[in-house]
């Protein structure tokens, strides 16, 4: 079964799911899943675990992908749900996300300036900018994945860049 079968062909509902075809989907979409998870939880280890879990859950549930439904938004929805569950469940993650807003610039080493600045962004700006840089700088892919309009993505990216510009140039 080719990858196209997952991208809208009713054969996606078949109970015979081809492992190599899904492996191809993993190669293509893992980065955007990872970027979304990183944007949500802003911790590389957690994002890695959640991205892997997302792809494995997707493999188990691929039979339920509706005919005509595209894989990318579907798998990103799974990732978003898992991230929200993880944030709710994991008190440490919640506390860390709360601390992000309280942490001063002096608390981090010089070389993590950019990461620190991205951390400070609100989630609706952080997720698109992280996805932009971690998944091939494609605004249309972000719009597709987050199920929002392309102009909305451009607006968020613009706001995120403006805020980052300010954060990176604030006085110590």
């Amino acid at each position, binding site marked *: 079964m080719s990858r196209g079968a997952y991208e809208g062909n009713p054969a996606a509902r078949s109970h015979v*799911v081809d*492992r190599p075809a*899904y*492996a191809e989907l*993993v*190669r293509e979409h*893992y*980065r955007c899943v*990872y970027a979304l998870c990183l944007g949500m939880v802003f911790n*590389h280890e957690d994002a*890695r675990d959640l*991205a*892997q*879990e997302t*792809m*494995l*859950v997707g*493999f*188990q*549930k691929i*039979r*339920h992908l509706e005919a005509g439904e595209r894989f990318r938004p579907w798998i990103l929805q*799974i990732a978003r*749900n*898992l991230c929200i*569950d993880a944030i709710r*469940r*994991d*008190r440490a993650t919640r506390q860390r996300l709360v601390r992000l807003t309280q942490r001063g610039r002096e608390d981090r080493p010089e070389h993590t*300036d*950019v*990461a620190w600045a*991205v951390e400070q962004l609100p989630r609706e700006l952080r997720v698109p*900018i992280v996805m*932009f*840089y*971690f998944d091939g*700088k*494609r*605004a249309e892919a972000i719009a597709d994945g987050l199920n929002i309009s392309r102009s909305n993505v*451009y607006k968020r*990216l*613009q706001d995120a*860049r*403006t805020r*980052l*510009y300010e954060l*990176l*140039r604030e006085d110590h």
Partner: protein
Amino acid sequence: MDAGCGEIRKMMVDQLNGRTSADAEEAIRLHVAECEACQAYQDELLGDDRLLSEWAGREESGMTAGIERVIGLLDAVWEQPVLDTRRAGRGRLRLQGAIAAGLLIGVGLAAGLAGSRALSGPHGQAAAGALSPEARAAVIEEVLARVRGEIEQSGTVVRQELRTEVAQQIEKVAADLDTVLDRDRQWLASTLNDMEQRHRTDRASVHGDLAKLARMTETEFARTRQYMVRGPYGGGEVRPREGGERSSSRGQL
């Protein structure tokens, strides 16, 4: 910065986001040739863009490893029952088990390959029966990481259960306290009632006694007066008291 600078800077940001046109690029080029401030701004934006790209690039190897790991685990996970997202907590446990099993198999295979390669070397016989130190360290590290994860998750569940239990106990104690307080309130009300009634009875009784005493006093007073005016025999003489001059003088009056 003149009025056009704001527009040009917006175009610069759009350009970085991949939304640009030949006209916009030409406008930017012409503007920065004239405006040093916008030239500096563009340089800074490009610097930020480079830093962000480098930051993402540092994770590239981690992402590649993640992809390979997921692909390696697909077979192990496929045998698991389909997960229900509403029960993601339990599902996650099963997935973690599968991930741990897959990792062990993967690392074991890697170790096996390393072993078979070692067999063809000069120290092949010695190495044949043992895991390479790197493989062993990797196995131990993975197992420890998974065990740590499971313990953390179990800890979370236990904490939640304890919290629920404590909340239930607190609710029960509060309900018991309410009952006790209600009982005490009722007892107090009834005692106050009794006291009030007793007080009323006592007051009535005291009033009665006082009235009786007043009547008796009045009678006694009248009798004394009569005695003093008429004497004990009703004839007006006063019976002299023994050895009392005042009595006799009063009798003469």
